[in-house]
């Protein structure tokens, strides 16, 4: 934003335009880009998701609207816009209306600190990562409002599950991010990406190639998937159990807004993952003159889409986990692992020889990973007896 302002200010042929107008333009342009590009990605992510899930399950995805179904998101949008908006008679109408709006706004705000290319960040906050977590947690409020205001058992159950799940997975996620912040020495997203630049082909310095970074990447991805209620962790909207969870009573465009918020949060979280662990826009060719930033943007979106595709792939494969398994996994495996990961970062920081540091932290994390998964997933359930069975 500042850079854009400086750029505009520096232009000689804009010298007569008042500063206030220039700064307004510098503010509005990134916002417009965010609210057009990312919802566009959202729209086509839904198409890609449906097509990929179809192929995974031995069927064609949508292929009727336009060639390869390319206009399907538009048709979906038109359909959702023209659908009747039904509000339950006993619902809290104001909160019911407010919830989907509140679901979208935090998701959009997340993109404010996402550096999509060299120097291309809407706002370079010093506390970028803190901002991300503060905002992303706010979305759970929208889910709970939606569930509560609908005055529907299934909505309420879904909302309660959402709250329990998001609050639980927030903890290991933040602690995984703390490791990155410790290693980078900054909370700024731009600073974190800058720390990962350089190295061979601008690749080797990515945090994911260090033991603690890899563990942090896995922890953070799991947490992000749980927080955006993606498939193995989609119990807040488990269709087979509670219809659609907190958005059971939503139809038409309010429903679309919930979907938009959810997908935008997932995309933003994928973006944060890329920024923190996968080197952001860093990649081969990013240091080149003139076209370097463009390649950087390309790398960023390529990594983003890869993560989204993997999430879709997981959705097409894995079954939903049970509520007790979900909680046990968060508190017994992810949380201790993220704390031990912070210890690993400390070791990494204070060991002089990076080779030794690599080996020691890798061994430390591997041992704990095995121990914790053994403990955390142990089933201490008594063998079930069937009283009336013969």
């Amino acid at each position, binding site marked *: 934003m500042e850079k854009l302002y400086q750029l505009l200010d520096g232009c000689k042929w804009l010298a007569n335009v008042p500063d206030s107008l220039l700064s307004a333009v510098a503010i509005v342009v990134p916002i417009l880009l965010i609210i057009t590009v990312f919802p566009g990605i959202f729209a086509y992510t839904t198409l890609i998701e449906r097509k*990929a899930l179809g*192929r*995974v*399950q*031995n*069927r*064609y995805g949508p*292929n009727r609207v336009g060639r390869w179904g390319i206009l399907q998101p538009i048709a979906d949008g038109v359909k959702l816009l023209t659908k009747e908006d039904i509000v339950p008679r006993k619902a809290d109408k104001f909160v019911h209306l407010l919830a989907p709006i509140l679901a979208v706004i935090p998701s959009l705000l997340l993109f404010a600190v996402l550096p999509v290319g060299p120097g291309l960040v809407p706002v370079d906050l010093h506390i970028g990562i803190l901002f991300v977590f503060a905002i992303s947690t706010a979305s759970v409020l929208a889910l709970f409002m939606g569930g509560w205001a609908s005055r529907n058992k299934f909505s309420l159950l879904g909302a309660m599950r959402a709250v329990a799940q998001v609050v639980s997975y927030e903890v290991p996620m933040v602690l995984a991010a703390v490791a990155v912040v410790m290693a980078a020495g900054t909370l700024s997203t731009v600073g974190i990406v800058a720390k990962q630049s350089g190295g061979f082909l601008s690749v080797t310095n990515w945090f994911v190639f260090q033991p603690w970074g890899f563990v942090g990447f896995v922890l953070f991805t799991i947490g992000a998937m749980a927080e955006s209620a993606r498939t193995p962790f989609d119990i807040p909207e488990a269709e087979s159990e509670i219809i659609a969870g907190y958005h059971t009573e939503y139809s038409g465009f309010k429903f679309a807004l919930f979907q938009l918020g959810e997908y935008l949060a997932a995309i933003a979280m994928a973006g944060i993952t890329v920024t923190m662990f996968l080197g952001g826009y860093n990649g081969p060719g990013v240091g080149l003159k003139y076209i370097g930033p463009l390649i950087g943007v390309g790398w960023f979106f390529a990594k983003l889409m890869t993560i989204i595709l993997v999430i879709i*792939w*997981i959705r*097409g*494969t*894995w079954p939903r986990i049970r509520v007790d398994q979900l909680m046990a996994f968060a508190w017994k495996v992810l949380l201790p692992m993220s704390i031990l990961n912070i210890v690993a970062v400390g070791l990494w920081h204070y060991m002089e020889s990076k080779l030794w540091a690599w080996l020691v932290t890798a061994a430390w994390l591997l041992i704990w990973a095995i121990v914790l*998964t*053994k403990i955390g*997933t142990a089933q201490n359930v008594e063998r079930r007896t069937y009283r009336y069975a013969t």
Partner: protein
Amino acid sequence: MGLLGKNLFAGMAVTARNFVGSYFDGGRKERLVTYQYPEERMPLPENSRTFPFLVYDEDKDPVGTMRCVACKICEVECPPQCIYIVMDRDEKGKPRQRPKVFDIDISVCMQCQICVEVCPFEAIKMDNDYEKSQYGRFDDLVEHLPDLLKSNDYYRQIKPTEAGAVDAKLKAEKEKKAKKAAPAVVPKPVPAALAPKPAAAAAAKIAIPDDAPFTPEQRQWLSGFLSALGAGVAVPSKSVAEASASAPAEADASAAASAPAAEAPAGDWPWHDAGMGMQQRMDLVKDRSFADKLMAAMAQTDCHACGYDCRGYADAIAAGSENDLSLCLPGEAETESMLKKLMQEAGKV
């Protein structure tokens, strides 16, 4: 004890193989099994059927060459009663032996094919066109004569085997008729005695025993039902039975011995049932008047192909005002020969 989550990744390998494989020719057929309906269609089995249609022979004149003679057997037999037929007549009221109105309500039709099985003229066949959606729920789902008429070529195209058999049968019948028409002097009972009589044999076999615990009404219904079954089994024998002059007599004798004629109250005609076989009908009129016997020889469809209903035709013959015995179309040669036999017995030839 394997690595934790090993099977999760094995599952991801399976789905990845599905995903990637569906984009290559090798895996495509095996993986993407969906038929893309309007463009791709599953090949229909030859015996698949949807709704009936009426066969005509020549494209130049569909209405003139249609095989249907409006005998209304299918209308009578249709279990859900979805067929409605009105005979076409000329200005004088003489039947043209073809339908003026032939409606099939495909919202009622249950695709049972009984109309096809009872049709003596091979005029109605089952289509395999399944795209019959309409916007209206009532009138749009009633198919009228122009929609129902389809050529024999179309029939050959959709059901080659069945249509081939039908064509051969019709050709044989035509030749036989031509032969019969040319040397009219050849005495009939000679070939009839040589020909096997599966229909008669079947009818005799399924006669109900005397000691069976039935009331007369039940017995009557049951014998009609069984004879219809027997006729169904012996469908190919129809052409053979054409000249079976002596067959009914034999059957009469055996049936009379085993099953006494049911007592029918005066004024109603229990034999007036198109589902009944000739033997049963003749049994029922054994002790009735000559006109009743004549009537029982008719096909009982009241089709008016002769210009009367069945009662009227019988009365006209009995009264001597009608001399032509070959007017009953649905009854075919069976009725004609039976009428001749009755006339001979009564000495009225």
